Structure formats: structure tokens, C-alpha cells
């Protein structure tokens, strides 16, 4: 029997980006808040200190900061005819573990989704007709609009000190920013980062090709910044060890550099690390969460009661915990009934490598130092003639030039031997990559459930992922990759290589840690797990954060939108739920 501990007002499961935001919002409101984090405590000093943090082998190759598959992983298959097998070592995505979550080792590419993205189905039907949506595609509206989220996007950017330049200020299109973005109520808190030579070459070439390049929004601070919580950040030094590492310089926006100095000092907030939550507990009615069960580092089980339970354990883990706890009806792809695990989606990435004459010094950079075009993202262009839904941004990022994993070699270069060595010597300083970062719609055959065979270190079933790319995404990707090729050509490189997305989705090469869906939000409880305030339809004192609530995935990195949704939910909890605990939307 687990030992039962004294109750708290709010229990946060996991302590990464979304939990830090909610922890501060709810502790500020006077509630007693407790966060349970499976990983260790870590902070800028000593854990991300120079120079030990700049160790490509240890962190990027051997994955020291990420989830250990030995403890927990997923099983994967492309389709229902296959048997899912465990992801034995990390590949396609790198979930975080430890205080700050993946927020510690993200790049800081900080985007807002487009206004139309939140009305995905309605928008497509209105502009192209319902027949435009292919058989099997299960896209839907989010139940929340861009206009409703705008103040929350803004709050998250000001928390982070995001560096960028507005493209649409209250409806006015500006010269330097992204003309396709939704209207923003004020400019970014900080100007863009300094440009690398690669981004300038991209800018010039993209203009020549007739597109609208702009400095990509970066949660790497371009100048010293004090955020609204009074936390001070330093100017980024372009060290080039952002993503997959921690920042030693208080310049990448993370829970540690933007919230924790305030939150950890609050007497009504507490944090327990090395505590792995294994179940959310419900009362007999099944309509009320009573708390969570967790296992501490000595293997002992505890029951932590709470009035309000918030899943903030990252998209995939939130869904896994709902599955393990038996909360909600599991989606069945045969009958199309059930909502839990439904509409899993991901990111469709491809690229063009360019080999230029210029010395680009790729090792000077920052996780979100990039130049992008948004001309072919979302519905920023007429899809009518193309017959697919969705889009992608094209960007040249100068994130760093870590030699083992961050080098490009021209097509046809052998993998080893003198020719490989020669090509490394010729191209390391003089190459860059244009990335095509695309949307993935949701489909009735892409979903999450529990694996019948494999178990984690706690003896619980692993979560099973069934996923492959569909024709719609392949066509989208081919189309936008061809636009990237136009830019590459206009850069007048020595040579370039087009890396089209080919073959089935693979769990092996790293793509992005942008897993979405499985516990999606919406207005209709028969097609969503949580309502528009991220409140569980069946269990009103349970809220679910993270990208698992996305009904499908847009062509951007998710965290700007994840952060905005978190602030949006926090506001609903503070201003409405606490006054009258119960469903915020009638089912």
C-alpha cells in the first residue's frame, strides 16, 4: 500500500515548461502547489556551466539530458499489420527529463501558429469546400481562436524575452517582419539576434526568388533583458551549444532562466524530484481526480492527494498517464469510437543542403538564429491548384557547428575513407542547410494506445505509437521543398543536395521533438479529450497541458503555442474554475 501524504491544492505532474508557467500562475494566486518531477534537480550553476556543458559527445550523441529508454520508452509500428517494437534507443524525438523538462534543451525557435490553423477544418471547408479534405483525414477546429490566444502568446514572449521583429502590428504589415503572421498587439520584447552570414545569403536569395524572408523569432536574448517576473537574462554570446544542451549564459529562455528564481522562493510552492508519477487516481464516481500515485527514487510508492490535478509531463507522457489511469475511452481505429490516443500527429521535415563558396563559420550561432520564409506555410497561399492541405516554413538556421552531428556533405560522398575525409575538410566551414518544417494533419489510423507486450521499469505497459506519413503530407513536402530548392539555387552555391522526405516514417533518425495529439482539445466531447480550456471533459478537476491537445500539427515548432495555451488555461482556472469548481463548458 502506498503511503498517503497530506493533501495540496494543486498537483503538477512533471516540472518542465508548462508546469513552471502554471506553478507560478497558481502559486501567485495563493494556492498551495506541489510539482512532482521524475528527473533530477538542475540549474544553470552548476549543471549547465562552461565548459563542461559544451560536450557534443556526452549530451548530443550519448543523450545525457534526455529520457533514458531503459526506464521508459514507446513501442512503434507504421501500421496495424505490423507488430510494434520498442524504440530501444532514442531517435526520432528526445523527450526531456529533469527540472525544466525539454525546456532546458530546446532551441528557442518561438513561433505563433497562424489564425487559420486554429480553425483548420472550418477554414478549409470555407475556402475550398468539404470535398477538399481527403478520406481518413480527421482534422478539426481547436475550439479556441487566435484572437482569444493573442494576449497569451504575448505574455509568453515577454516572459521569454523573445528576439524578433513584428510583421503584423495590430493589422499593419511592417517591412522587416513576417507579413503572414497573425496580428500582434505589440512588437517583440527584444530585437532580432545578430545575423550570421548564412542567414544573410538566405535572405538575399529568398528575395530574389520573390519570397518574404524575415529573422525567425528566437527565445535566445539579443540583449540583456529583465522579464515581467523580474528575472534577469544575459545577452546571448552565440556559443552554438543551444539545442540538446543547457545554456550557461542565462540567455536561452527556459524555466530556469525565466520563472524558477521566483517560483522556487514561494513558500506555498514545493517541488519533489526523482518522483515518477505512475497513476492519476479517481474517486469511485470516476468523475473526480483525488491525486496521483508516484514512485520515489528508493522505489517506494506514495499517494499524493490534491484538489486539482494538472498533467504537465510532456505531450506523450500526458497521454500515457491517461491511458495507464484508465481515464476516458480509448480510441479504437476499427470502430472510430473513443477519443483518448486519437489524432496523433508530428512534423514533416525535409531540407536542402547548400555548399557555398563563402566561409560561414557555422560554429558561431544560436539555437534560434535563423532567417525564414512563411510564404508556403499554413494557408498563406492558394492550395486550390495543389490539392493538399497544410504547409511549411523554409529556414536557414545557424544553430552551431558541432562537428560530429552538424555537418553536411555533398551528394555521393562516400561514408568513409579518404574521399569522406577530403569532403569534410572542404565543406564543414562552407555549407549550410535549408530546413523545410512542415505540418502533419491528423488521420484515423494514426494513434496512441498501450502496448500488449512491452513494459517500462515500473512494470507498466509502454505506450504504443502507430504512425506513418500520408500522401497529403508527402505532396505538401515535395511542393515546399521545391520552393526551398529555388532559394538554394539563388544562393549560387558550388552545389546543393535536395533531401526529400522518402519512405515510411522512421523512428531512427532525429527529426523533431514535436509530438502532438492523443488528448486533443475541442468543442465536442465525442472528438476531444479536453474542452477549450484544456479541462478534461469527464473529470473537471483534471487539466491536460502540452502539445497533446493539438487536434493536428501546424508547420511550426510547437512551444510558442503550447505556452500560450498554458496561460489561457491558467487564466480560466484562476478567474472561473476556482470560484466555481466544475465543468467550464457544458458537455
Amino acid at each position, binding site marked *: 500500500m502506498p503511503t498517503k501524504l497530506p493533501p495540496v491544492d494543486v498537483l503538477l505532474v512533471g516540472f518542465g515548461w508548462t508546469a513552471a508557467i502554471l506553478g507560478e500562475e497558481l502559486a501567485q494566486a495563493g494556492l498551495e502547489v506541489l510539482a512532482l518531477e521524475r528527473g533530477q534537480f538542475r540549474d544553470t550553476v552548476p549543471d549547465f556551466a562552461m565548459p563542461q556543458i559544451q560536450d557534443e559527445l556526452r549530451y548530443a550523441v550519448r543523450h545525457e539530458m534526455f529520457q533514458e529508454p531503459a526506464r521508459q520508452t514507446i513501442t512503434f509500428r507504421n501500421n496495424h499489420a505490423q507488430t510494434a517494437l520498442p524504440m530501444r534507443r532514442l531517435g526520432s524525438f528526445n523527450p526531456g527529463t529533469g527540472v525544466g523538462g525539454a525546456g532546458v534543451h530546446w532551441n528557442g525557435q518561438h513561433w505563433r501558429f497562424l489564425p487559420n490553423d486554429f480553425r483548420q477544418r472550418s477554414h478549409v471547408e470555407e475556402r475550398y469546400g468539404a470535398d477538399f479534405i481527403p478520406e481518413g483525414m480527421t482534422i478539426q477546429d481547436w475550439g479556441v481562436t487566435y484572437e482569444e490566444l493573442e494576449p497569451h502568446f504575448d505574455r509568453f514572449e515577454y516572459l521569454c524575452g523573445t528576439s524578433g521583429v513584428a510583421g503584423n502590428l495590430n493589422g499593419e504589415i511592417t517591412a522587416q517582419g513576417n507579413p503572414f503572421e497573425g496580428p500582434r498587439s505589440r512588437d517583440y520584447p527584444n530585437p532580432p539576434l545578430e545575423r550570421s552570414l548564412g542567414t544573410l545569403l538566405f535572405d538575399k536569395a529568398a528575395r530574389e526568388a520573390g519570397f518574404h524572408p524575415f529573422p525567425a523569432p528566437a527565445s535566445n536574448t539579443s540583449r540583456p533583458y529583465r522579464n515581467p517576473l523580474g528575472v534577469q537574462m544575459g545577452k546571448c554570446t552565440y556559443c552554438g551549444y543551444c539545442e540538446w544542451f543547457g545554456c550557461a549564459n542565462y540567455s536561452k529562455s527556459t524555466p530556469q532562466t525565466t520563472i524558477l528564481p521566483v517560483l522556487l522562493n514561494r513558500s506555498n510552492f514545493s517541488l519533489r524530484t526523482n518522483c515518477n508519477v505512475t497513476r492519476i487516481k479517481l474517486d469511485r464516481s470516476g468523475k473526480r481526480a483525488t491525486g496521483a500515485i508516484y514512485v520515489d527514487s528508493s522505489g517506494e510508492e506514495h499517494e499524493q492527494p490534491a484538489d486539482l490535478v494538472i498533467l504537465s509531463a510532456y505531450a506523450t507522457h500526458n497521454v500515457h498517464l491517461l491511458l495507464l489511469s484508465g481515464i476516458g475511452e480509448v480510441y479504437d481505429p476499427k470502430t472510430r469510437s473513443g477519443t483518448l490516443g486519437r489524432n496523433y500527429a508530428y512534423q514533416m521535415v525535409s531540407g536542402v543542403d547548400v555548399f557555398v563558396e563563402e566561409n560561414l563559420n557555422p560554429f558561431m550561432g544560436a539555437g534560434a538564429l535563423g532567417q525564414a520564409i512563411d510564404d508556403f506555410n499554413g494557408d498563406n497561399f492558394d492550395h486550390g491548384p495543389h490539392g493538399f492541405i497544410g504547409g511549411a516554413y523554409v529556414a536557414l538556421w545557424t544553430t552551431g557547428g558541432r562537428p560530429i552531428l552538424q555537418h553536411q556533405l555533398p551528394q555521393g560522398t562516400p561514408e568513409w575513407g*579518404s574521399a569522406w575525409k577530403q569532403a569534410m*575538410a572542404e565543406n564543414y566551414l562552407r555549407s549550410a542547410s535549408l530546413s523545410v518544417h512542415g505540418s502533419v494533419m491528423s488521420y484515423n489510423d494514426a494513434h496512441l494506445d498501450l502496448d500488449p507486450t512491452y513494459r517500462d521499469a515500473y512494470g507498466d505497459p509502454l505506450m504504443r505509437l502507430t504512425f506513418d506519413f500520408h500522401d497529403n503530407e508527402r505532396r505538401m513536402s515535395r511542393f515546399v521543398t521545391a520552393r526551398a530548392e529555388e532559394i538554394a539555387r539563388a544562393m549560387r552555391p558550388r552545389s546543393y543536395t535536395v533531401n526529400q522526405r522518402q519512405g515510411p516514417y522512421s523512428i531512427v533518425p532525429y527529426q523533431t521533438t514535436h509530438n502532438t495529439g492523443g488528448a486533443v482539445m475541442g468543442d465536442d466531447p465525442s472528438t476531444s479529450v479536453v474542452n477549450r480550456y484544456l479541462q478534461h471533459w469527464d473529470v473537471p478537476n483534471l487539466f491536460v497541458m502540452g502539445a497533446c491537445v493539438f487536434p493536428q500539427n501546424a508547420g511550426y515548432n510547437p512551444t510558442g503555442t503550447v505556452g500560450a495555451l498554458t496561460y489561457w488555461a491558467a487564466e480560466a482556472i484562476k478567474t472561473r474554475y476556482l470560484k466555481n469548481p466544475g465543468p467550464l463548458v457544458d458537455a
Partner: protein
Amino acid sequence: MVPALTRRPGADGHFTDAERAFVDAATARIIPTDDTGAGAREAGVTQFIESQLAGDFGDAARWYMQGPFKDGTDEQGYQLPLTPAQLYSAAIRAVDQHCRDFFGGRVFADLDAEEQDEVLRGLEAGEPELGDVDSRSFFKMLRANTVEGFLSDPMYGGNQGFVGWRLIGFPGPRYDYTRFIGRHGEPFPLPPVGILGRDGFI
């Protein structure tokens, strides 16, 4: 998390003499010493791989190693029941046996460079069948570890004298490029430095 060296005492005793000879010979073909300069041998790649295999990586300490083990699709990734250390020793034994059978009793390390390349190309393409050991998986791992040893920080035993970084023009991990980020196209003026400093090797 405190700084840790993965180069452990005793690491040098991980390989048998035959294994060390194989790795030394194979990595010297994967990154040869040639006109472009120093290769895997000068970089100390064998020493790097040996200490990696003696540590957590060799033990697959972070990997999910619970059964049942089944063959999967390429998209499902590594499914062998072997840790990297086990894969190396099983594969080396099998490759040396294969060489003895086909090259008049000589093991891999005793072949000439052309013959060695031929064997490596075979492994890369999944030939020969090495019993329980998948030759493609082994080659992939050997090739990846060789590149790691050539291009990782010298404190791990490879990239000695920064030979890998010098070849490509990487100046090592540095804290502050504020004064340089705007000097577009200029060569970076300072010589490589490692996590442990300029000598970079302990």
C-alpha cells in the same frame, strides 16, 4: 550532474589483443592517414572506442534492453539483443573468422589495405552473413564510433592534438563569439581549444 570523464581506469584492458588489432586496422581504413593529414590512428580512435565500450555506452546502460527481441523493419531501428560491447566482440570474432576462411588464414588486421577495404565495403552492404550478428548494424556502429572518436573532445581519448578539428576548421567549444559573429566570412583566428584546455589531452 557533475563533470565526468568517461575515460575510466581499466578501460585499456577492455579489448583482447585481437579485438584491439581489428579496431585499430578497421578505423585506420575508415579515416585513413593520407594527403589530407592525420587519420583515426593519430587521433587515438582505438583508445577512444575501447574506453567507450568499457563504460555506459558499451553496456547499453541507457537503452531499452528488455525482451522479447524480434526482427523489425528498418524504420523500427536497432532490435538486437546485444549491447555495443557484445556486438563488437561477437562481430570481430566472426569477421576475423571470415577473413581466415577467405584470405588464406589471415585475420582482418593482417590483410593489406585494399583487402581490408573490400571486407569493410562488404560489411557496409550487409555481407557476409555473420551468424547471429548483423554485419550492417556492426559496420554502422563502428563507423559512427570512429567519427565520434575523430571529432569529439580530446578528453575522451580520441581527436588527440585536435587532429580532427584541425582538419575541418572547428575551433573547439568556446564561450563567447560576440566579437566575431558580425565578421562575416573571415577565418576564425584562434587555434582549437578543448574542454580541458589547450593541450586538451590528459
